[in-house]
């Protein structure tokens, strides 16, 4: 059975605070039966330089993607990965990683596609753990392989495709949570990172831009809850379009709660992974540039 959620006031503003744990909780619970700590980094060598004792590595590039279909791994491949990492279907998984949990949130999202029930993020990610002077080790983690069941990936709940977005243009609000420069089309990747190649710097109209919601804010690392939010937005909803429910779109929901389904408790939250990248390359897919929201042209659907 999954272990009990951390009761932490810092997370209470989230619709699903049970999806977050603090670094202290990880220090107290890593290695306990039923808890597996997973590191997933943008820099795929970082785990080897030192990781949380007992944690296992998931490589976003080679473990979660299927190179031939250019999609996520399938049910069998996912079962093989989880078994190899010593993860059981009813384990509690805690994911952490570098760059504000950028790819940790991505891994969490992929795990959720396979319906793994209890996946949590470590608030603040690897940087916070290191900044607090907590232990890292280069010792190999001993893993007892499991027999994870083959579960088919379910793309219908938290993932949306280009067709879904086109079909709902103008009727369902879309939120762009990339950087302001990506939103306007000035850049194809967030500031301080190299530009994505072969990609028009564009976004897809129409978009709703709630104050503080349409773009991830830079938040001081000391801020307990939100330090991970930007990255969560980025890999969960960011470089992506999140389709929100009408309730959320009325902006009555505090921004931090809307950002990252399933953390955020949206009524429905289909998501299109890297939709904007692909829009940038696609023909006959409308885009808007500049600061204005833009309108869906006639016949775009």
């Amino acid at each position, binding site marked *: 059975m999954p272990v009990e959620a951390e009761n932490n006031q810092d997370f209470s503003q989230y619709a699903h605070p049970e999806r977050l744990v603090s670094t202290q909780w990880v220090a107290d619970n890593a290695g306990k039966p039923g808890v597996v700590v997973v590191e997933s980094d943008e820099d795929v060598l970082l785990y080897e330089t030192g990781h949380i004792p007992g944690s296992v590595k998931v490589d976003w590039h080679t473990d979660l993607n299927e190179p031939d279909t250019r999609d996520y791994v399938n049910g069998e491949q996912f079962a093989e990965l989880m078994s190899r990492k010593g993860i059981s279907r009813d384990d509690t998984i805690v994911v952490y990683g570098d760059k504000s949990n950028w790819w940790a949130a991505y891994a969490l999202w992929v795990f959720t596609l396979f319906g793994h029930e209890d996946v949590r993020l470590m608030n603040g990610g690897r940087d916070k753990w290191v900044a607090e002077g907590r232990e890292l080790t280069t010792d190999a983690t001993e893993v007892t392989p499991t027999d994870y069941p083959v579960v088919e990936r379910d793309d219908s709940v938290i993932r949306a495709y280009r067709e879904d977005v086109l079909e709902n243009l103008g009727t369902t609000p879309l939120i762009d949570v990339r950087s302001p420069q990506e939103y306007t089309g000035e850049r194809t990747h967030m500031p301080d990172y*190299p530009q994505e190649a072969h990609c028009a710097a564009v976004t897809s109209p129409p978009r709703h831009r709630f104050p503080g919601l349409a773009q991830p804010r830079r938040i001081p690392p000391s801020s307990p809850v939100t330090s991970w939010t930007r990255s969560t937005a980025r890999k969960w909803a960011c470089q992506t379009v999140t389709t929100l429910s009408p309730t959320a779109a009325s902006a009555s929901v505090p921004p931090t709660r809307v950002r990252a389904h399933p953390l955020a408790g949206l009524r429905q939250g289909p998501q299109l992974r890297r939709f904007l990248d692909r829009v940038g390359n696609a023909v006959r897919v409308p885009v808007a540039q500049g600061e204005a929201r833009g309108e869906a042209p006639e016949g775009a659907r």
Partner: protein
Amino acid sequence: MTTDALPNQVQELIEDFDAVPEPDKLQLLLEFSRSLPELPARYGEHPEDLEQVVECQSPLFLAVELEEGTQDPGVNIFFSAPAEAPTTRGFASILYEGLDGLPASTVLDIPDDLPERFGLTKIVSPLRMRGMSAMLGRIKRQVRDQQAARTAG
């Protein structure tokens, strides 16, 4: 694989990476990241003399120096990258081992697709591989610029 004649020290690096199976290539890259030399103090005091390779996913700076006095001077390369960016450090370290000390003409003749010859393209994302290509491109540009400045001077 092309048959371009590569300098021995570069060819050996390619063979080193070629000799290890794919999962161990990351480990080898990690070892390279650890062996990247520290910046000499003169650069530590003058970070503005370094050129940032903005194509990298993590902060990486480099400097290129040409030795004095010869027609085809030796090239010395210096890198600075944080410890928390081991992949970027690993790329820099490969280029350092491969190119440092070679004559300028030899550095300029290094094929631009060198980064793709280490068998890393499947295990490291394309965006990151571009970072390594950018390092090589910027090194060559600096060599060219400095040679041109000498000729002009």
